[in-house]
């Protein structure tokens, strides 16, 4: 087994999940993940592998975000139309999709650094790894995470509440 193969087997799932949550798209996430491992090929050795991988993936995402946002949104709309015209969603998946949309909005309410720190923590990175990947001081990770978690939960609950209110109003 080559080194990169080992890296891949160990970290790909977590990396893809992290990226899927961050990007909202699995294909895109897998693509960024693969690019990350490609870059790992070029390294002779990596000190803290997990931190390194997540840092590289995060930077790739950052670079992507600078590209043309408008075009991507337009294309996203097209993709959505195409999907909608083709697939008949079933009951569960509607609800799941709604929850996913709420979660998406809630996580978008976070500052980027808070969001990334939280997503990394969810993949099991420890405070030192998160600090290394995001170039934070280890002492500030706790504060960052506490702020991120609070904000995420409060945003989500607020969004849930206003949706329920709308549904009630519509019903009445």
């Amino acid at each position, binding site marked *: 087994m080559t080194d990169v193969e080992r890296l891949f087997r160990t970290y790909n799932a977590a990396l893809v999940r992290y990226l899927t949550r961050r990007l909202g798209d699995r*294909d895109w996430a897998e693509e960024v993940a693969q690019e990350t491992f490609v870059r790992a090929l070029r390294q002779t050795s990596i000190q803290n592998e997990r931190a390194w991988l997540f840092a590289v993936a995060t930077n790739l995402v950052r670079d992507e975000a600078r590209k*043309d946002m408008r075009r991507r949104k337009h*294309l*996203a709309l097209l993709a959505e139309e195409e999907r909608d015209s083709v697939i008949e969603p079933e009951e569960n998946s509607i609800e799941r999709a709604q929850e*996913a949309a709420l979660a998406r909005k809630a996580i978008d309410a976070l500052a980027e650094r808070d969001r990334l720190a939280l997503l990394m923590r969810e993949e099991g990175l420890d405070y030192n790894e998160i600090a290394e990947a995001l170039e934070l001081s280890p002492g500030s990770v706790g504060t960052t995470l506490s702020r991120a*978690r609070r904000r995420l*939960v409060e945003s989500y609950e607020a969004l849930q509440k206003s949706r329920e209110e709308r549904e009630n109003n519509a019903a009445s």
Partner: protein
Amino acid sequence: MQHPDEGTIHSWLDGALPPEEATRLEAHVAECPECASAVAEARGFIAASSRILTKLDDVPSGVVPVARPVRRRNFAAWQAAAAVLVVAIGSLVVLRDRGDEKNAVTSQRTAAVETEMSDTATVDKRFNPVQSQAAVVPRNTSAPPAVANTMPAPPRDERGANRPATTGSAAEVAQTNAVAAAPTAPAPPFAADARAEQPLRLVKEERVIGGTRTLYAVTPGDTVTLFEPVASQLQGGVAADAAVPMERSGALPQGVNELSTKVSSVVADSAAVMGRISSAPQRRAAKSAAAAPTPAPAPPPTVQARPVREITWIDRTSGRVLTLSGRLSVDQLEEVKRRIERERATAAAAGRKPPK
């Protein structure tokens, strides 16, 4: 420590506090109701945010369409190049015997394979018939020339600044195929049923260099192509000077399980084969490609024709590497393959020569 702040509480709950500090905090919380309730609240936030984030995992692919990247180095490039090789095994003799016809032959094969290549990476467990995806089209600039000339890639305007340099008309053909390969309405389920009812109709059979090509009509207007290489030249007589050493090409059919039809596994094996051909830098990449076959495609933004897909397997009786290609999903191709095999078995049993 008096009344730890929220960040410290979270650090403690995350196990990130040094042991002494952790002990002190624990002792304090045991005696301080305020902090005890702060800890309870923190625990609640940690659990709730985990739950919320889990909801983000249930995301379909194709939410944000990605234009195909220009240069897929290493993994996908070598998987795909290897896939071309698998199919081209049958025409290796051609490469050897008819050097000047190299491009002509392989271009017609790789035109079909090109789109298969682009789907290779996706044709694995993630393959979702509901969302047909055309995948990455790699550009392999250092593969054997016959192959390399026919593998351009469309511009990657979303994901990077790279631009391809297409070479030659064969490349344009391949590129057209690759670009035209786009997600559409999924290979419609209703059509699959229709296909199941109809018998396979043999449309045309022709001898081409390297083997026989047979066209079947699955439904009117929908054809698949079965390519059978000429047997003797496949197994033996592969030139020593050709890219693939003999024991390697002999190993290919053995390496691929009998009737193994998963393209990704074929590709993985071929990646190892391909590694031999390449120059040094790519050899390394090919090894890694074989090691970590990750599909990483995404559907291109435009919606046009259905993509051409291809499956490859070893024929049980003849031992030949057969290839079936068409504008169907892999599952549908496999269904067609089964029917072809059934028909051949029936014909063979009836004592006639099997219909080709």
